């Protein structure tokens, strides 16, 4: 039946990059209740989910970058890492560390400036995980301004996971800046992986062209509101 050993052209299809930025809180309070370890574990556990999603995607090729913030914000992963070979070096909390969330947002806003960001890329995703509120409020204000005055930042998909009771929703909502997308709450460390999994599903669905963010948020982020949700993933009703 087959043509024995005939040379075939090599495979491959042209794809567009999907950049995901993880902003991880490493402040002193992240040591409570094993939150930091839970976060490290959660990121490792969503990786296979992203890899298998990417496999089925004709468009998106996922790259990860990460910023860690405590007394200040630094790149944890600065060079975009393809998800297929992605490896998460565990983060440690900073003893009595502050929450330089504003500085972290500024780092990402800078990476998203139109001259630095590839034109063919899909809307980037910024995922903020925190158990507190910014201690650098002036930087936060500048960061938010920089993010939204930039077309890439404005078009980005922004999700936030609040850990425990200490997280301040008003700052997180200003970061999300979309009334349809609520902050995801992990009541305790155990829930971090659950929420991060939901966030991953939301990222994959929101990155499908033609998706309705509000509908995805209702289906994935607020499952209790799912009673009257309908429609399969990636499909338009």
């Amino acid at each position, binding site marked *: 039946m087959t*043509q024995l050993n005939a040379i075939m*052209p090599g495979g491959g299809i042209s794809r567009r990059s999907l950049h995901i930025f993880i902003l991880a809180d490493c402040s002193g309070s992240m040591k409570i209740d094993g939150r930091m370890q839970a976060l490290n574990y959660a990121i490792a556990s969503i990786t296979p989910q992203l890899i298998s999603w990417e496999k089925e995607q004709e468009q998106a090729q996922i790259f990860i970058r990460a910023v860690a913030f405590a007394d200040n914000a630094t790149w944890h992963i600065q060079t975009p890492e393809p998800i297929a070979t992605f490896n998460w070096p565990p983060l440690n909390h900073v003893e009595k560390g502050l929450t330089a969330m504003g500085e972290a947002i500024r780092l990402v806003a800078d990476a998203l400036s139109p001259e630095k960001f590839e034109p*063919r*890329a899909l809307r980037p995703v910024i995922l903020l995980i925190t158990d507190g509120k910014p201690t650098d409020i002036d930087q936060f204000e500048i960061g938010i301004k920089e993010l939204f005055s930039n077309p890439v930042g404005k078009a980005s998909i922004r999700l936030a996971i609040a850990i425990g009771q200490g997280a301040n929703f008003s700052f997180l909502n200003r970061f999300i800046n979309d009334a349809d997308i609520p902050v995801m709450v992990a009541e305790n460390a155990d829930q971090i992986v659950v929420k991060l999994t939901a966030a991953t599903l939301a990222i994959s669905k929101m990155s499908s062209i033609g998706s309705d963010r509000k509908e995805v948020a209702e289906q994935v982020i607020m499952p209790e509101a799912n009673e009257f949700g309908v429609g*399969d993933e990636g499909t338009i009703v």
Partner: protein
Amino acid sequence: MSFLPGTSTNGLLYPQVGDEVKMVRTNTSIRIESKVAEGGQGVVFRGVDKNGHDLAIKWYKKNKYLERQYRSIENLASHSRPHKAFAWPIDIVLHSNVFGFGYAMVWVEARFISLVEMLKQRLQPDFRTLISIGTELVEAFSTLHARGLCYKDINFGNLLVDPNTGEVAIVDNDNIASEVTKQGIKGTLRFMAPELITNTAAPSTVTDLYSLSVFLFYLYMHGHPLEGQRVNVSYTWEPGQNISETTLATHFFGEDPIFVYDPWDVSNRPDYDSPIVRWWDIYPTSFKNVFIKAFTQGLKNPSLMTRVNETEWRNALYRLNDQLSICSCGAAIFVDFEQCNKKCWNCGNIPALPFTISTPSGISALSEGFKLTKHHIYKDFKYREVIGATERHPSQPDQLVLRNTSNMTWSIEPVGEELKEVKPGQRMLIRPMRMSIGSVIIEISR
């Protein structure tokens, strides 16, 4: 509603691993073994029946269309599956104390993968396997459409392929409905017919034919038929220039689509480094013309006549299979009877023409793997009834022989030789000749 066995006593939305669900018609139990996937509509489990056979169970999430979904599945399950490729609903399943319902279907083995996954692999299946995938897909949809049903949501998640055998598995059959049903989903944007994107038509066989063409274009050309330079330059992050992806997609796939190889409009040619460029160049003119029809007249004037239907696709794929040859460099190539002196995509040389066989169905390349079928002789669409097959010459590996696998004796008259017979099971060296199979005269030449 009859299918709701009371409120969930345990408050659960789905059956749990280890639970049993029952098929309603046969009252057969299926044990839930593991959760396989979760989507917007429901959760899919692997289950095992009492004979140890694997089944897939899809359990619907609570939603306001549950009753309609129940009737739709009940209806599909009452009919036999149109083609073996469909993971057709077998029966509705219920749980003794979980609200709602699910349905059982054939378990799709792990050898079936998404087409995208296959296209991304460095080593691609050979062309005969690729042609087999396309043919099986086209035949499956042909049987579905012949029953007055349409699929509505052809996309990469639903059409799975086995890259080794060339078989196809079509999953998510629960959206299948008769054409007159206006309700239900419209599809996945990149596969949706323009008239669905612009909301000027409802899903139908005509829109299925469009989505099928997009899928086949991906299968053979490794890209989207409408995604060329015109679409790529519209991606920008320049202030004030950035347009939402959905707006762009609606425009370029719906309102104003242009085929990347539209013969009358070059504005959307693929980027030079697009895989489409390389693959498009490999195929023969006659095959490319089918895609040109599908994405020019079939693009903006939707009808059963303007779109390429399954019969046309089947013929095109059958012809393509007959044009497959091999270059002296070892690369798989197609003989293009409409373009002379076409260079080999691999070595760049003009390949020597293989022997060809002229039958009532047209000219075919006598290359390794070629099968002479009844359709070649009688044009009776019996593509699968093989009456002759090429083999390598046992002692001269650069020569091919044709084995008579039919139960008729062929008479052959090779150039410069006397009349001979090729009895059933016998082989003949391929060389210029006239041969007769019954009353049909065919010719082999170089």
